[in-house]
Every structure is written in structure tokens, then in C-alpha cells.
């Protein structure tokens, strides 16, 4: 098929960007979206132009690196997938596709479609861990039984790939689904409960510091999340922070 692509081009963080139109043809419906972008870039390199920079790595939906806002939605029109798993069969011959970077003040553009998501790392450094030494002299793994239900719920929260689609989709650029998932994973497990109060306080404080917006419970994040992280994680985080405030 033949497509018109409207792509955000921005040389670097300091330069103003703009949308630029490109044409690609001979796109197979079996291609992934990023393979279509490869075709475009090969074409640009051939002409000696600067190819479109975009983040991507594993191309199987687990590393969380790819991050495009396609036709007005994070990771494009399909559900439960990342951009790299989006296939061209979701589009029609002759379509115009708008491709933008994930937008948030806390995710500044580095170049073209590449954004800086290290805010997520800093939030996790503020407390998304259990303070246990890696000596290997911890107690036996089966010493504390954990109910299957709690383990499964913790796992569901832990599947977050940190791609930032929640922030990108949220009208407030809020990071609460991401932070909620991290807080929940630990709050649901007995190992994590020891430091629960400090963890949630510090992580939320860092989240606020990074300049993410506030959650107004629109639920857009949950819908666009490639891993289907539930909104309940935000509710749980709210509760954890209230608990931390009351117990202090």
C-alpha cells in the first residue's frame, strides 16, 4: 500500500520541531509499524537525508522502548500492544498517518520521536525496591508463603514495561498508572510491606517533582496500556499514601 506520513521532526531538545510529510509505497500489510518506518528511513538515507530517529529495541513488546503517538493514540489504534507489535494491516491503502512523540513536559524530546523518560528511573530510585542486600544469605524462598491471589496480583502490576503510554495518553500527563503499578507490586507482597510507607511517600514526592500532572481518573491510561495495567493500582497507591499519612 501507499501511505502519507506526517511525522514530527525536531533536530534536538533545543530546536523547535515541526510536522513533515513523507510518502512511502510498497508497504506490505504484514509489516510491523516499525518495519514501515525502516522502509522510510532506508529511503531517506538513500537520498542522503537524516532518517527519522525513534526509540525501539526488542521489537517484541517487552522492553518498553518504542513510544510513538500514532493517529492520536499511544502505540496506535490497536489494543494491548506496543508500537513494535502494531501491524500495517490496521491501516488502509492511501491512509495518512500522523506520528508524534509521546508528549509531556516530564518527557522532553531528545530528537524527532525520541523522548527522555529518565523521570521514570528517578521515581523508581526514590523507592521502588526492597532494601535487601544481594548477599544470597536471605531466608529460604519458601519461608514466607504468599497467597496465589496476592502473588498473581503483584505479578499483574509488575508486568508494567515502563513505556510511558499512560503519561502520553493522559490528558493531564499524569504518571500515576506507572507509579501505582510499582507501589502496588511491593505493597501486595509481604516482603514489600516493611518499607511501604516510606516507599509510597518518596515515590509520589519524586513523581510530583518531575512535573507530571495529577490524575483525574479518566482511565485513558488503562485503555492504552500495552500490558493492561489496571486502574486499581492507582486506587491502591492512593490508599497506601493515605495510610502512610495517617500512620505518621
Amino acid at each position: 500500500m501507499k501511505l502519507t506520513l506526517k511525522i514530527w521532526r525536531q533536530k534536538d531538545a533545543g530546536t523547535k520541531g515541526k510536522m513533515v510529510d513523507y510518502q512511502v509505497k510498497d508497504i506490505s500489510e504484514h509489516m510491523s509499524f516499525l518495519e514501515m518506518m525502516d522502509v522510510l528511513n532506508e529511503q531517506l538515507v538513500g537520498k542522503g537525508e537524516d532518517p527519522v530517529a525513534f526509540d525501539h529495541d526488542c521489537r517484541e513488546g517487552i522492553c518498553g522502548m518504542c513510544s510513538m503517538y500514532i493517529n492520536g493514540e499511544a502505540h496506535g489504534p490497536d489494543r494491548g500492544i506496543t508500537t513494535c507489535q502494531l501491524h500495517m494491516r490496521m491501516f488502509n491503502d492511501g491512509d495518512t498517518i500522523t506520528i508524534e512523540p509521546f508528549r509531556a513536559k516530564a518527557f522532553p524530546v531528545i530528537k524527532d520521536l525520541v523522548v527522555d523518560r529518565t523521570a521514570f528511573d528517578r521515581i523508581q530510585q526514590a523507592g521502588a525496591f526492597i532494601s535487601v542486600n544481594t548477599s544470597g544469605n536471605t531466608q529460604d524462598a519458601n519461608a514466607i508463603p504468599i497467597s496465589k491471589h496476592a502473588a498473581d496480583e503483584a505479578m499483574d502490576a509488575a508486568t508494567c514495561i515502563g513505556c510511558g503510554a499512560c503519561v502520553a495518553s493522559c490528558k493531564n500527563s499524569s504518571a500515576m498508572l506507572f507509579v501505582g503499578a510499582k507501589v502496588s507490586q511491593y505493597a501486595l507482597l509481604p516482603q514489600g510491606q516493611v518499607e511501604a510507607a516510606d516507599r509510597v511517600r518518596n515515590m509520589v514526592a519524586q513523581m510530583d517533582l518531575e512535573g507530571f500532572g495529577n490524575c483525574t481518573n479518566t482511565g485513558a491510561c488503562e485503555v492504552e496500556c500495552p500490558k493492561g495495567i489496571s486502574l486499581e493500582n492507582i486506587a491502591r497507591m492512593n490508599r497506601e499514601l493515605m495510610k502512610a499519612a495517617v500512620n505518621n
Partner: protein
Amino acid sequence: MSGFFKSSIGRKVAMALSAFFLMIFLLQHFIINSLSVCSPDSFNEVSHFMGTNWLIQYLLQPVLIFGVVFHFVMGFVLELKNKGARDVKYVQNKGAANSSWMSRNMIWSGLAILAFIVLHFIDFWFPEINTKYIVGDTSGLLHNGEGFRYYEELHHKFESPLRVGAYVLAFVFLALHLMHGFTSAFQSIGATVGRKKIMKKLGMAYSVLIPLGFIIIALYHHFNH
């Protein structure tokens, strides 16, 4: 604790707490108003009690006004802050693909409700304050002294089709506001964990039934002239 209310989540919780207060107020307002349909006498009595009881007048009324003002101011503050969290807007954004209109437009439904409250104050609250505290008439009686004035005043207000229209429209906005706001408030205080579905249903029931009730009351009085 003060640190808590400075955090993003703390503000969210404060929004939710003020919302709970307003929703409870709305419920009692509705119950009293519905008396005007089924029992004008009881309506008069309850209205008089509410209008003259010192606890309600000097404690609950200021708290209510504070709650309303807080909810609005906080709503605007958060909206502005949230808008600022995305400095470059999307060229194309499909909000409808992942969220309800109601959830995305709380600020607009809220503004409509604010406009309504102004109207409502002009209609009822200012005259009421004037009568009671400026004129100094706390009897609650009609000019001719034949019974309470509350029902008559209410009934009279709904004569104008324009006002009724405005009221109906305002309650439609209130319904839209509540459709998101009710569950959202519970979500904010973390009460939805494990009961998302039932909260959604409850929210839908509240946000449709209460405004609808108000609308019916307004129409009832309008068509009973």
C-alpha cells in the same frame, strides 16, 4: 499530614473529600425538595427548620460554602497545573478512543454547574439571606401571615419556562459531572480496589437518579401552575 495534602495525591483526596461532602449535601437537598412534591407542609416545616436552626445556619452553611468554593478553586488549580504538564500539544489526539467525554470535560461541566449555582443563589439564597438577616424576618411566614412562605416561593420560581429550562440544562451538566465524579471520588480515596464494577453501577445510579429527580421536581412545579 500537611505534607500529604501538598502532594498530588493529597490534593486528589481533598478533591474527593469535598466531593463526598457535596454529594451528601445534594442528596439531602434532593430529599427535602422532593417533599415539595409529595407533601408541601412537610416541605415548609423542614425548610423552616433548616433556615432557622443555628447549627445549620452558622456551622453547616459556612462549611458548605467553603466546600463548594474549595471544590471549585481546587478544580481550577489542578486543571491549570495539569494543562501545564504538557507544554507542546498533540497535533492529533483521539481522547474519545480511550476515555469518556465526561471524564475529559469535568472543568466544563463544573463551570456550567458554577453558573447554575450563581443563578440559584440569586434565586433563593440571596433573597433568603436578605429576608432573614437584613430585613430581620425569621418567622418564615408569608406576607399575609397565612402559613409558611417556602413552598409558595419555590412554586412561584418555576413559573418561568426560561428558568426551568436553565435548571434542566444545569442538572444535565450535573449528571454528566457526577457520571465521572462519583466513581472518581471513590477511586481517589482508594475505595475502588476490588469493587470497580459495583462502584461504577452505583455511580451511574446516583448520577442519573438525583439530577433526574431535581428535573422532575422543577417540571412538576412548572406544569402545576
